[in-house]
């Protein structure tokens, strides 16, 4: 019960009040409520792994097996059910469980459930739904298919009809194009794009519009950010206060954007990130050919976790923990990001909720241990390779050495000429001193350093300036030397031109050479207390017989263990029950605001149940069958009548399903942080669409805000290209809930706080954009009317409603009076209007 409620609450955190919540229909079901109650109050001891009293209450199937085979629930007969007896007498949960006794209503729930015949107990599945194979459910046949566009709608409409609801009518075209543009590209539609769509009268105008946005390079920049968040991407190492830089991480960011834009099949995309080096056949120190670059770059995925080992300065125990923290982070990112399951609990003990044993956690670690081995550790900056074949790198090295040698020779030849001239100049200077002083000084100079008296040292110090003769001094005294120096300097410059550009480097994760060192289970997660050796492996509960992890055998001279490649195969196998579901569910969430499983980061036993389980499996099985194309999935979802609905509420829907869990309308929602910043740049006409490359630096102002200085190169590029140090997120983005990456972020929150309003009212960024937007309106249109129209078209994707137009004209008049005294009154009025447009809800929300 509590668990479920809080799952709902968490969704609330993510979506604030637009949110949709795991639906009443399933939540109110007593069978589900009772399992939720067991999960929160009993499963800590009576869980799937080593349950106390051999009673597992984590699922109906387990419960049906009873305690050591003895039934604990007798349907319809609470007083004969051991479970009820224990609960009623108060012996369960025991006093020392820490959570106190069950509340009366909680007890009642159990009694009622048993009295009702313990629904679900006997007809339950043996395995948690998400660990079962993905099925291909039949598309529901509906008697009335009017208004439906594809299979998705059949599943949605079936549930709506059962609740006496139906899909809302289709939204108008201007609403749809803004919704699609922001959803797919993170930028509002341009007036030209709107005009093209509105002018297209063909029946597939909408689909063509969707395809145009999916083909835009801006697509990968938006959806890439979601991937990077789940992958825990950051441009810094974190962990310690230093938060040192990760100068090569951007290449991974670019790899993600490129891959998504190219619609690389998602299974391949993931395999590359887990084992690109092994796919490429990379040999440490061997060739890095152009074809291998992409695959090796992908492995930075496993490098995204915090890594303080470049700065560790503690005692040996602390250093070991610092190293193992990197492994833990990489594992956490992989398991939550790709499989939607939490494993960290199993580091110290068998998982209380999920069927993951303590030793299985270390089996997972053993997959990474050849690359992240504490005894063969590389610091973060050492985990990089140069691009080029061995020959190319050797040639490069040779060339560099050659240039260096030539330059040294030139410098030496100049010095050879300078030495006697320096001596001569010194003599000339000494000659100017009076004789006794000169004699003393010469004597001091003639004495070896260590034998000099204090007096002599002082004397030398006194004449320091006289004695120190620079090349410039020589050149000034001897014209010939000056000429020679100029000549040699130009020769050096010539040689420098021959110096080859440094070889490009990529940040990678590869196995350390040599036979892998055995990995252990660690008692209670204590790395000082190794227990038995564990082989690489994965949780048994996630392994149908058709998809087991087969640990590769080690062979001498093998460049890599192949453990990650096998893991990559296992993760992305069509028979992995979680991989497809997690990905598809997250895409759904990013289109509709809530996933089919509301806890997108957790599809495990402790996660929420799907609102539309058949739809989810239908989508997943089709996604897999059709080659893991993300763009096809987007196209499918975006083409549904479900997606194309109006967002305005209907009384029936509000009454029966206020949270819109059944999707009787499209839920309006606030733009996310990046979309707000990027849209402001786009609307004001200054968006710089340069793609890829090193991150745009940010800086902290004296007052403590993190900004991109307006005059910095790339200041107006999209947010994904800004430097993402863990400790230095852009203030403008963080205010609007951009994640601060610690491990990774698979679900964002959305808050509504006055600091956001202050940013839109007072920040330099908002004021600068308003000035540019205003300038744009004034230079593109001549009349007040047409400027107002264009302003709304740019900011909210449509012409103003009459009431908006009226209010706007009135506002302009008011401001004109206020600014009457000023020479730039007209400009100020439009600046104000533009700023308010970009602060308005019509701009900040997609409908």
């Amino acid at each position, binding site marked *: 019960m509590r668990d479920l409620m809080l799952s709902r609450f968490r969704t609330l955190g993510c979506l604030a009040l637009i949110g949709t919540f795991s639906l009443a229909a399933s939540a109110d079901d007593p069978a589900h409520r009772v399992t939720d109650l067991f999960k929160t109050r009993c499963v800590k001891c009576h869980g799937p792994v080593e349950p106390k009293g051999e009673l597992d209450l984590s699922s109906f199937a387990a419960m049906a097996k009873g305690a050591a085979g003895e039934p604990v629930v007798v349907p319809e007969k609470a007083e004969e059910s051991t479970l009820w007896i224990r609960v009623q007498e108060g012996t369960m949960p025991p006093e020392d469980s820490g959570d106190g006794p069950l509340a009366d209503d909680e007890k009642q729930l159990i009694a009622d459930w048993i009295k009702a015949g313990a629904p679900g107990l006997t007809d339950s599945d043996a395995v948690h739904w998400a660990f079962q194979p993905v099925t291909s459910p039949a598309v529901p046949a509906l008697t009335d298919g009017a208004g439906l566009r594809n299979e998705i709608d059949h599943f949605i409409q079936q549930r709506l009809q059962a609740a006496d609801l139906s899909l809302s009518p289709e939204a108008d075209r201007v609403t749809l194009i803004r919704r699609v543009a922001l959803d797919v590209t993170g930028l509002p539609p341009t007036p030209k794009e709107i005009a093209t769509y509105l002018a297209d009268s063909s029946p597939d105008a909408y689909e063509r519009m969707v395809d145009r946005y999916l083909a835009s390079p801006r697509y990968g920049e938006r959806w890439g950010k979601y991937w990077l968040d789940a992958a825990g991407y950051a441009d810094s190492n974190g962990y310690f206060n230093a938060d040192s830089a990760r100068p090569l991480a951007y290449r991974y960011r670019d790899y993600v954007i490129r891959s998504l834009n190219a619609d690389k099949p998602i299974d391949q995309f993931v395999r590359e990130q887990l084992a690109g080096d092994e796919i490429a056949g990379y040999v440490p120190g061997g060739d890095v050919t152009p074809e291998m670059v992409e695959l090796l770059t992908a492995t930075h995925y496993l490098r995204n976790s915090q890594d303080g080992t470049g700065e560790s300065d503690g005692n040996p125990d602390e250093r070991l923990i610092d190293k193992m923290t990197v492994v833990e982070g990489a594992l956490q990112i992989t398991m939550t990001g790709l499989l939607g399951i939490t494993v960290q609990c199993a580091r110290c003990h068998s998982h209380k909720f999920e069927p993951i044993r303590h030793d299985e956690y270390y089996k997972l670690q053993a997959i990474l241990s050849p690359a992240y081995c504490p005894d063969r550790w590389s610091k973060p900056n050492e985990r990089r390779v140069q691009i080029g074949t061995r020959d190319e790198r050797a040639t490069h090295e040779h060339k560099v050495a050659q240039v260096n040698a030539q330059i040294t020779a030139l410098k030496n030849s100049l010095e050879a000429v300078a030495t006697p001239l320096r001596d001569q100049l010194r003599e000339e200077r000494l000659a100017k001193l009076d004789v006794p002083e000169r004699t003393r000084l010469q004597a001091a100079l003639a004495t070896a350093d260590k034998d000099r008296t204090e007096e002599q040292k002082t004397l030398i110090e006194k004449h320091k300036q006289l004695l120190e003769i620079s090349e410039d001094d020589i050149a000034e005294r001897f014209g010939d030397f000056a000429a020679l120096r100029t000549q040699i300097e130009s020769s050096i410059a010539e040689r420098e031109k021959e110096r080859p550009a440094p070889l490009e480097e990529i940040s990678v994760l590869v196995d350390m050479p040599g036979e892998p060192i055995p990995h252990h289970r660690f008692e209670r997660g204590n790395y000082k207390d190794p227990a038995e050796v564990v082989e690489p492996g994965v949780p048994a509960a996630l392994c149908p017989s058709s998809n087991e992890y087969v640990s590769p055998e080690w062979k001498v001279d093998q460049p890599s263990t192949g453990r990650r490649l096998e893991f990559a195969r296992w993760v992305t196998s069509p028979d992995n029950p979680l991989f497809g579901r997690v990905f598809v569910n997250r895409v759904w969430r990013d289109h509709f605001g809530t996933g089919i499983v509301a806890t997108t980061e957790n599809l495990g036993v402790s996660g929420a149940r799907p609102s539309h389980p058949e739809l989810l499996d239908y989508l997943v099985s089709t996604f897999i069958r059709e080659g893991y194309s993300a763009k096809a999935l987007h196209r499918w979802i975006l083409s549904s009548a479900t997606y194309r609905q109006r967002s305005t509420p209907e009384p029936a829907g509000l009454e029966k399903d206020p949270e819109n869990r059944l999707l009787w309308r499209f839920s309006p929602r606030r733009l996310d942080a990046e979309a707000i910043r990027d849209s402001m740049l786009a609307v004001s006409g200054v968006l710089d669409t340069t793609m890829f490359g090193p991150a745009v630096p940010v800086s902290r102002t004296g007052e403590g805000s993190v900004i991109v200085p307006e005059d910095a190169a790339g200041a107006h590029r999209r947010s994904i290209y800004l430097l993402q140090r863990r400790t230095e997120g852009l203030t403008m983005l963080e205010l609007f809930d951009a994640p601060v990456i610690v491990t990774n972020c698979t679900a964002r929150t959305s808050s509504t706080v006055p600091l956001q309003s202050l940013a839109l009212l007072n920040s330099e960024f908002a004021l600068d954009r308003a000035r540019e937007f205003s300038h744009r309106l004034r230079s593109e249109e001549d009349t007040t009317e047409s400027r107002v129209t264009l302003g709304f078209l740019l900011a909210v994707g449509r012409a103003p409603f009459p009431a908006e137009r009226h209010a706007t004209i009135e506002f302009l008049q008011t401001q004109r009076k206020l600014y009457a005294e000023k020479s730039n009154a007209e400009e100020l009025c439009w600046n104000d209007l533009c700023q308010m447009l970009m602060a*308005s809800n019509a701009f900040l929300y997609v409908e």
Partner: protein
Amino acid sequence: MTRQLDFALNRRAFLAHYAGSLGGLALASLMQDNASAAPTLNIPSGTHFTPKAKSVICLFQHGGPSQMDLFDPKPMLTKHQGKPYEGELETHFHTQKGNVLASPFKFSPAGACGMELSEILPHTAGIADEITLVRSMKTDSVDHEAALRLIHTGKIFAGRPVLGSWVVYALGTERQDLPAYVVLGDPGGLPVDGTKNWSSGFLPAAYQGTVFRSGDNPVANLRQPADISATARTSQLDFLQKLNTIHQARYPSNTELAARLSQYELAAQMQTSVPDILDISGESAETRALYGLDSPKTEEYGRRCLLARRLVENGVRFVQVFLSGQPWDTHSNNAGNLRDLCARADQPSAALVTDLKHRGLLDSTIVLWTGEFGRLPISQQADGRDHNRHAFSLWLAGGGFKRGYVHGATDDFGYASIENIVTIHDLQATLLHSLGLDHRRLTFPNDGRQDSLTDAEVTRARVIHDLLA
């Protein structure tokens, strides 16, 4: 940052937590999209039982103040001065282990209670009868960042909510135009581990601490641009209100949109309420002298301690005062540095307690003076002290804590707490208890489970009732 919606979130969370199946009903009604009235969800706190305190000021002394030089007299150190320490010691810089290092400072009994305090804490001695001194603290890490996370969030790893965030999540605020959780940063810069010290972790971002910066723009974007007049701003906001009302008409029942509408007004209120609070010109000469504002040594820290009082007085729930860097990290010149730090922090810290008491605010405000760990009885190289997780001292005042009370003890050398040990988790549980919150029931879903500040099942955290009056 607190605002109406937070209360909505908050209330829901509590209903979901504590109201059992009733919560389901209440939750459903709260979730209804048809609460057409603007949300008026400024509900009273969601405490589990009657609270003693309602606000907290944490004077955080990071770096690890040396207990044997400040709070915990150890004659045995003097006796063994310069001799090798007999027994095992855990060090952070294991290659720089020295011999036993006595404290050069005299200790004498203070107040009617006779609590022994170091001569470099004369002002703290003056409030001895108001405080609970804990000499038996213990934490789990000798690494600064990890130890900071432990004392603030309960675990060594980053990404978890700090105590202040949990408190604000549970209790909300009394003032909508002020952040509920304020951090008074050092003008010299961020403390070690930076913004993580006030991060809301897996709680919604709205519960993180808001830094009030020194200077004339204490909150990001608070200052109205110079070229926008008050009248111009008013008509801007009027216009914005009109646009948003037109938009809202399409979604008459959407509480988030309604809330955002009111945010602009709150933002405008903040522009006056925050500077008002930060303006201390109305404070009496007596008060200014109490905090040491008349002396260059104490002026800066004194000012922030005074601001802490003004914030609490105005309904702010949680205030943290930090120093730049980690000043108490006395790896070298331990004695000299301590003398200097106490000259800076002792008077303002004690003044805060005195002032709160004088104004009748001490009973409802907890003042916590602590670092993240302690220091070793041996020297590090010549004259420094290395980190120590096995013992440190801290003091608490007000908010239901005992007055003139010393709790627990360390061994003869001050290396390890041995009597009535208080772990940082116990401390957290006890602080929450004083605020009317049960640390085992104040939870939030994370990583597939109900997570909490103390994670009592693992840490065995318990409320130390002996500390409470």
